[in-house]
């Protein structure tokens, strides 16, 4: 089992969600995060003059899938979150030791 952590643009959530759902990955956790990378922030305006915000709002999607499903899920995310500009985000893939479904106590593959 692997956990996919994808940092994406806020406006890409709906497309990514839909694509994952079409590939039968329904469960996920989404959080609002701030981060920085090659995009190097954006300029905003005060009352007079400008300032630079380097931590930009992004969304983090977390989902856990079977090892063999990783590439399908990651491809679905990449295809739908990409604009080609800096700031499209990153995907991290981590090993998962165990999964437990709270309602039933089911473990691992049965709990994904």
């Amino acid at each position: 089992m692997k956990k996919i952590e994808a940092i994406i643009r806020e406006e890409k959530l709906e497309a990514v969600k839909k694509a994952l759902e079409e590939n039968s990955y329904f469960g996920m956790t989404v959080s609002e995060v701030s981060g920085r990378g090659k995009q190097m922030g954006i300029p905003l305006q005060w009352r007079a003059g400008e300032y630079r915000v380097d931590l930009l709002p992004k969304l983090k999607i977390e989902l856990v899938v079977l090892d063999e499903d990783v590439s399908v899920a990651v491809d679905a995310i990449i295809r739908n979150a990409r604009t080609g500009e800096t700031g499209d985000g990153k995907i991290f893939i981590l090993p998962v030791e165990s999964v437990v479904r709270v309602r039933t106590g089911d473990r691992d593959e049965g709990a994904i």
Partner: protein
Amino acid sequence: MPVSSGDTAWLLLSSALVMLMTPGLALFYGGMVRRKNILSTLMMSFVALGLVGVLWVLYGYSLSFGTDSGGFIGGLNFLGLMGVGQEPSTVYATTVPHLAFMIFQAMFAIITVALITGAVVERIKFSSLLVFSALWLTVVYCPVAHWVWGDGGWLLNLGALDFAGGTVVHINAGVSALALVLLLGRRRGFPGQAMEPSNIPLVVLGAGLLWFGWFGFNAGSALTAGGLASSAFVATNISAAMAAFTWMVISWLHRRPTVLGTVTGAVVGLVAITPAAGFVEPLAAIPIGGIAAIISYYGMLLLKMKLGMDDSLDVFACHGLGGIWGALATGIFATVAVNAGGADGLLLGNGMQLLKQLVGVVSVGGFAFVATWVLGKLVDVTIGLRVGETEEMVGLDISQHGERAYGGLLR
């Protein structure tokens, strides 16, 4: 003179309108600071309602409007509202109960003290602010109010015009703010670190309440409910509108028409028309408001971006510069056709009036700067003006008030 029910109704309502400006100012300022300081910023304004609201009736009104002493300060004859009752005063607002005039003036003293706080947010120690505020009301506000509005005040006798407090409130607060900034220094992290406003919608709400309350401030200063109040009311609205729109355009030429800039423009327009509202034709508010926005916008850029002065919420650029321009503009655009108790200005061939206005600006500005610096220094060497480094980093909400603005884990 008998009490006029119309005038009394208008002045009491105006007092309530001006009262609402202080919570409005609290929101206007509060939304502009970082999340960790929002409550402390709201508190700095709101507490003026508590502190000045009491000191004013005990002695503030008397020092401002009591029997004149050499043109510089009022006497102690109204101490504890002695002799201030339901009968009209013989010299001030003679058609309304003296109490109504007194409470109307109280609201001005309250908001003037609150205005200064915008310059010192996010780093001043709350207890020190309270001590400073009480001293400032006594040593700076009361004398200046007496000079300009008190019977026998030297600027009043000179003929300097200030309809609703361009000098007493705005220049006074704006210049004092500047003196405090020099004493207190910059916030940690300024100017390198972007200090983003935490809640611009609150700023918009605050600006809306200020605009609304300002009708009481300016039109109420007619002290009667007739043509003069109406004229001042209209001039006030025109100036706010013109300045808001002008600021938006400048901001747009720069990059984008920002909301924060547009509502700031409205407030600057209100500041600038304050001394002039009841002395100029309403349409004079178009140049007064428009030019105010330009002066304040570039003043802000110069002070903050170029000189690196951390007048955190731009009190000097908005109220100091806006007030100075408004005072001078009164000397340019004034006409006795609007107010027989006023004077003609430069455009009607009376250049002397502009000179008198300049005397008002320089004397009040100079006095406020020096006196504030001395009072601030006094507080600094005794109890310290500034919070400690850790307190500042954690934020004043927690360190000064033991509260946080947005509590609870669940959304």
